[in-house]
């Protein structure tokens, strides 16, 4: 039988939902963010380990914890895979559109989930800069 979720979500969203990448906490994270609100249903927490190498800053590691729908989990997983290992200034340029595209698209009603994960990354980077 055809799963109804296959009509709503792309295969990539379902893949990331069922087997998310970079799930969990980083014990020695030097940047964190918490976005969303349990009232609205989605809460996303990001942990980043940012290191300096040759005068450049890199995201050495990134992990997420998310309470939310399939799309919220998939966008969390996707943003971590998109920016892990990237230079900080490159990572900052990742937009909600890029996240949605990397997932093979999101249903319009779920687009706010990609906005939330982009916001989480920006907030975590700001957290890092303020604490430097």
């Amino acid at each position: 039988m055809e799963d109804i979720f296959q009509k709503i979500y792309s295969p990539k969203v379902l893949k990331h939902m069922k087997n998310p990448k970079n799930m969990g906490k980083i014990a020695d994270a030097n940047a964190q963010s918490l976005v969303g609100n349990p009232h609205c249903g989605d809460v996303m927490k990001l942990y980043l380990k940012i290191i300096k190498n040759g005068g450049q800053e890199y995201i050495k590691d990134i992990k997420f914890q998310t309470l939310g729908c399939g799309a919220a989990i998939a966008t969390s997983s996707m943003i971590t895979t998109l920016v892990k290992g990237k230079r900080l200034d490159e990572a900052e340029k990742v937009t909600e559109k890029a996240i949605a595209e990397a997932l093979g698209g999101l249903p319009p009603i779920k687009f706010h989930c990609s906005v939330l994960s982009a916001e989480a990354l920006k907030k975590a980077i700001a957290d890092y800069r303020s604490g430097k």
Partner: protein
Amino acid sequence: MKLVYLDNAATTRVDPQVFRTMRPYFTQKYGNPSEVHSLGRQAKEAVEKSREQVAGMLGCKNAEVIFTGSATESINLSHKGLIEALLPQFQNGRRPHIITSTVEHKAVLETCAHLETLGRAKVTYLQVDKYGMVSIYDVRKEVRPETVLVSVMYVNNEVGTIQPVSQIGRLLKAINHERTHNKPHIYFHTDATQAVQYLDCGADKLGVDLLSFTGHKIYAPKGVGALFVKTGTPLIRQLDGGDQERKLRSGTENVPYIVALGKAVELSQKSKIKRQKEMERLRDKLIKGVLEIPGVSLTGHPKIRAPHLASFIVEGVEGEALQLLLSDKKVIVSTGSACTSQSLTPSHVLSAVGIPAELAHGSLRVSLGKDTTEEEIGYTLKVLREATEKLREMAPDLSELRGAFATI
């Protein structure tokens, strides 16, 4: 494991026996019941047989059963039709008054809201207790001289609570008995959509003047419903045209579907009590097992609930994600989570029973069917526990969140 379908409160599969009964009415017995030739008469007889089957269940006269296209249509006809019929009695700015509850199906709530918008009625929405139950004392308290209709569902479709319908029926009968000639009669409607299979739907016993239900929750196809209209209940039809259905619902009768509805009703009445007991046993096994998972609570009344419905709040989990993981394990359930609704607002029923939005996101409804097995319940419990654990592992620690957000 083959597909485990536990969303029977949303819809049921068509029973093969029902399907076989309706099939000849597409390509062989395709006459129009309004025609007097042999094919027409054959179709007419089939429609009347179905009417008799429904009347048998309701314990009413055949002529008191009107076939429609859905429970929603039945409700629209009932409420709009009654108010329209009574409107001429209301003058000098007085308006007919309707009493209903906050946990009704959208078909009732939106119909009432529409009548309010048109300025044809005033509506009181009764609050419910934490189990979703209406109090008959509240009904009595809200009755005004202008009250003409009370509409309370038999079984709530989200939390499964059985409403005190026959008590309300008795109360209204007593009030009507006392009413003087210048006060209108109060008519009583119940939406019996989730009740007809398992509960006593005798119209007299319930004390109803109007009762609506649909075919697709009882193993008939989608697209056919019925409305019981007690003799003497004033009603103006909402679809104008031919004289079908006692001139109350114009349009050529949907003969195969009406035949299917009649057959489904007949089958649902066979060994009703035995099936009800067996389903309650499976439901209780399910509830017991689900409540063994930490952070899970039952919604709806713990005892006074429909045999096929179990509903829960799973804390620290979002309903759509849970639905998705279960679906991946071939278990089909439903959720009242906002994330599955087009409006992104949580279910009005869960709000009405006082469940805060952040918990309503973790709502889960499991509705059993006549083919549900013990093995399926066992399997569902296993995958539900695994999916819940998996999602909680993904989520931030709730105790940390309590500090971050003052709302929980």
